[in-house]
């Protein structure tokens, strides 16, 4: 039936567009999971009042401003601070005590988007009296998201929810100690940023940039197809020292990936894994 023909054509148009974007700008969305991507391309069509994805090709390849807007639309994820509080509780109780056995710890928040997760982690490390021995690398491919992350200013309307989450993490203080409210925004304390480096890194195209003890990458892989997930998980396996920890989102899994044997589960419920020693190559922490 013709709907299925339409879908086939749409697939072709999508591939042409993504190939064009990759070769024109170097941003590689070719292995993004197609179902979410399709919704985002529909948004582009509405935005530019176009009927076909192929009509987006000239717009996005020639008009830098339109492409910048597209990049923004591609990272419109919505997350919270201390999302899934039980995960942070387990990080506190099961992971940080092990990290403390290393003299100095490097942490990678991969695909940090607008930074909610990074500040959540910094607060946790501070409360565990460990932050001064940590360096956090917070990376994202989207410079605009990174700029928001660096500013560390979030809507006051969200603070109530963040506070409720924080209180469920085994908190040792009051969430209000970590931000200043001004107008309708809450600005995270400058002190939290002292051991964070924000930088540009694209998981789809860039490689290892340091040996890590902990990698946090929650709800990022869900946007990738299995091939790209495998690529990124290989990258994480190569970046982690032996015994290093990998934290994925609660509904993500190594189960269908190529690195399932490289990691041992620490918490199945919260998807915390540890790189096993036997298969580790090179130096250890």
């Amino acid at each position: 039936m013709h709907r299925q023909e339409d879908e086939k054509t749409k697939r072709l148009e999508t591939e042409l567009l993504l190939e064009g974007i990759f070769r024109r700008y170097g941003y590689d969305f070719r292995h993004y999971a197609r179902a979410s991507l399709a919704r985002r391309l529909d948004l582009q069509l509405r935005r530019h009042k176009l009927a076909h994805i192929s009509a987006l090709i000239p717009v996005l390849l020639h008009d830098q401003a339109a492409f910048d807007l597209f990049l923004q639309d591609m990272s419109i994820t919505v997350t919270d601070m201390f999302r899934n509080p039980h995960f942070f509780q387990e990080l506190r109780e099961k992971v940080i005590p092990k990290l403390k056995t290393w003299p100095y710890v490097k942490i990678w928040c991969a695909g940090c988007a607008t930074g909610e997760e990074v500040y959540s982690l910094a607060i946790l490390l501070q409360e565990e009296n460990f932050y001064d021995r940590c360096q956090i690398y917070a990376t994202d491919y989207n410079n605009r998201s990174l700029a928001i992350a660096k500013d560390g200013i979030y809507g006051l309307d969200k603070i109530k929810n963040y506070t409720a989450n924080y209180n469920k993490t085994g908190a040792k203080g009051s969430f209000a100690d970590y931000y200043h409210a001004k107008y309708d925004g809450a600005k995270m304390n400058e002190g939290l940023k002292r051991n964070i480096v924000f930088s540009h890194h694209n998981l789809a195209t860039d490689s290892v940039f340091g040996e890590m003890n902990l990698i946090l990458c929650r709800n990022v892989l869900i946007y990738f197809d299995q091939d790209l997930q495998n690529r990124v998980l290989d990258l994480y396996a190569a970046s982690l020292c032996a015994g290093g920890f990998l934290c994925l989102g609660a509904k993500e899994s190594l189960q269908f990936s190529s690195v399932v044997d490289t990691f041992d589960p620490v918490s199945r419920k919260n998807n915390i894994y540890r790189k096993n020693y036997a298969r580790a190559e090179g130096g250890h922490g």
Partner: protein
Amino acid sequence: MAELYRTVVMGASAGGMSALATILARLPKDFPASVVIVQHVKEEGTDGYRAVFLGKRCPLPVKEAIDKEPLKRGIVYLAPAGYHLLVEETGTLSLSVDPPVNFSRPSIDVLFESAATVFGERLIGVILTGANSDGSHGIRKIKEYGGYTMVQAPSEAEVPAMPLAAMESADIDAVLTLAEIGGFLTGIGDHPIPEAPAMPHQTTTI
């Protein structure tokens, strides 16, 4: 051999847990399709409970969906709270944390629209009780792509707004009680997809 229905997608909101339990309880152990459900839920971390609740009442295994999980026949998948659930053209499930749609994450529209493009006429879409209009776009897309569409009879629904919105949006194939929906689904293994699209509101022949 005639094509059979492959997947059933269901959307439910207020009053949905008991409606879902009523339908799922009727499915046979050898149900030949997969069932994918979006039930609106406010709190994250409640998924485990919902899957256990429905699993106790359904002969089929009920589980929360995991990202990139292949869809299998005879299994009931539940969208996790706080994530959209989508179907990929490879027949796997995927999740997203894109902004809420119709103030909902998971959103019924998001699931239905992606499933419609993947499964076309092999898809059955069902809208149950609810106090909003989520799913009304998705059910129309299922219809457009040749799938079979059902809603819970508004007279029976705990909250009729969602079935009514679906009926307003699309020419729904069958308006049925929960018991009838369960009965219809039970029979899909024996009935190939009709050659011609079914007539709307042919409820008596089912």
